[in-house]
């Protein structure tokens, strides 16, 4: 190593020379590469869901039969609540851009205001997701699981596959708003035997409906399912709820860590760390992560609720 000494002399001026690859700082570039790998992770989850959705087309539930609640509103309102959640996340993305924008102008008060609002938006989204999970886990109409683990909805013959709630089947009355009473499998089976016009249908888009005789035979060793868990759910194929918990949970974890990062940066802004450093690039880097969380939600929204 004859020229080792010469090398040592030069290294200090190599990266410190002020010329950056791609004209982006180390931290910003690494945030981009992390987001690139995270995007591939999320696409792995979503396409895996696509695989099973295509495989179990007949028993894969339709989103509008699953997510129907809206706070303080009676009746069925598919899509409205997730649309609100999307709106909340878009708004918090806008406040984040405004915070970055204020940082470029070295406007500390502006960064505090907009970053603070972004944190509020993040918590609002997390609260909405908790509400969504609560209703998903508690369930709504209830369904029957046949001996071969297939989930079937109750429906009245000739009603074009409209789902009959277990509550209505057993009590004969329309299910009241927010009712979570639990029923026994035996009561459901006897009520099914008494109502000659009730049959079973599959959860899928095609609404494959059994005849009354087929349904009677299928009900022999059936089991009532109310709500959703990892092993069974009233909406349809077991994997549907598993993917729902996993993908929205993984996204929610990202939102949560984004809020934590935002809070750390917020405290640093209040303490004047970036004012002293001379630039607010840290707000920009965390902002990239926050926008990415919004970006992933745009895809989760499409592939869980729309398509």
């Amino acid at each position: 190593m004859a020229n080792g000494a010469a090398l040592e002399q030069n290294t200090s001026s190599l990266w410190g020379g002020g010329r950056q690859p791609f004209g982006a700082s180390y931290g910003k570039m690494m945030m981009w590469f992390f987001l690139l790998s995270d995007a591939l992770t999320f696409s792995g989850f979503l396409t895996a869901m696509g695989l099973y959705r295509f495989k179990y087309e007949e028993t894969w539930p339709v989103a509008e039969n699953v997510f129907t609640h809206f706070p303080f509103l009676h009746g069925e309102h598919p899509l409205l609540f997730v649309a609100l959640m999307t709106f909340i996340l878009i708004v918090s993305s806008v406040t984040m851009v405004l915070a970055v924008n204020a940082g470029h102008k070295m406007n500390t008060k502006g960064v505090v205001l907009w970053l603070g609002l972004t944190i509020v938006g993040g918590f609002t989204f997390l609260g909405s997701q908790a509400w969504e999970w609560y209703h998903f886990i508690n369930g709504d109409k209830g369904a029957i699981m046949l001996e071969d683990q297939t989930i079937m909805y109750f429906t009245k013959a000739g009603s074009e596959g409209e789902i009959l709630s277990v509550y209505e089947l057993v009590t004969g009355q329309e299910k009241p708003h927010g009712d979570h009473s639990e029923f026994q499998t035996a009561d459901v089976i006897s009520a099914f035997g008494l109502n000659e016009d009730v049959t079973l249908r599959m959860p899928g888009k095609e609404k494959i409906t059994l005849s009354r005789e087929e349904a009677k035979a299928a009900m022999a060793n059936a089991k009532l399912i109310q709500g959703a868990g990892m092993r069974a759910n009233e909406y349809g194929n077991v994997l549907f709820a598993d993917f729902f918990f996993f993908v929205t949970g993984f996204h929610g974890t990202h939102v949560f860590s984004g809020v934590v990062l935002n809070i750390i940066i917020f405290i640093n802004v209040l303490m004047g760390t970036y004012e002293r450093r001379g630039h607010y690039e840290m707000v920009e880097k965390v902002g990239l992560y926050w926008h990415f969380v919004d970006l992933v939600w745009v895809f989760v929204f499409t592939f869980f609720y729309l398509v």
Partner: protein
Amino acid sequence: MAENNAYPSEHHEGPEGTKWIWKVFWILLIVTTVEVALGIIKPDFLMGKLLGTSLLNIIFIVLTIAKAYYIVSEFMHLGHERKNFIWTITLPIVILIPYLTFILLTEGGYMNVLMNQ
């Protein structure tokens, strides 16, 4: 770290003011509203089959990619970075994700056919 912090990224001149931010906000909001409206109404003339799914679903996916473009290009500022950086980030995504999607969805459809035989 201290050394890196001394060199923030080159400042790429983006549009001045905050007007462009609100413009992107309205685009995202309107596209989402259109998606929700289509999802609730589900117009019959959009339910025809195309590329193994309904025309409506294709519209949803196109609108979603449009939203993603605005978020990445404007909010994440990637559209205003250097060209070689833009390609470094987008090319792996543009090549790998459609490839994975194509393989998994095709195989999923095939598994469905096998299962129902």
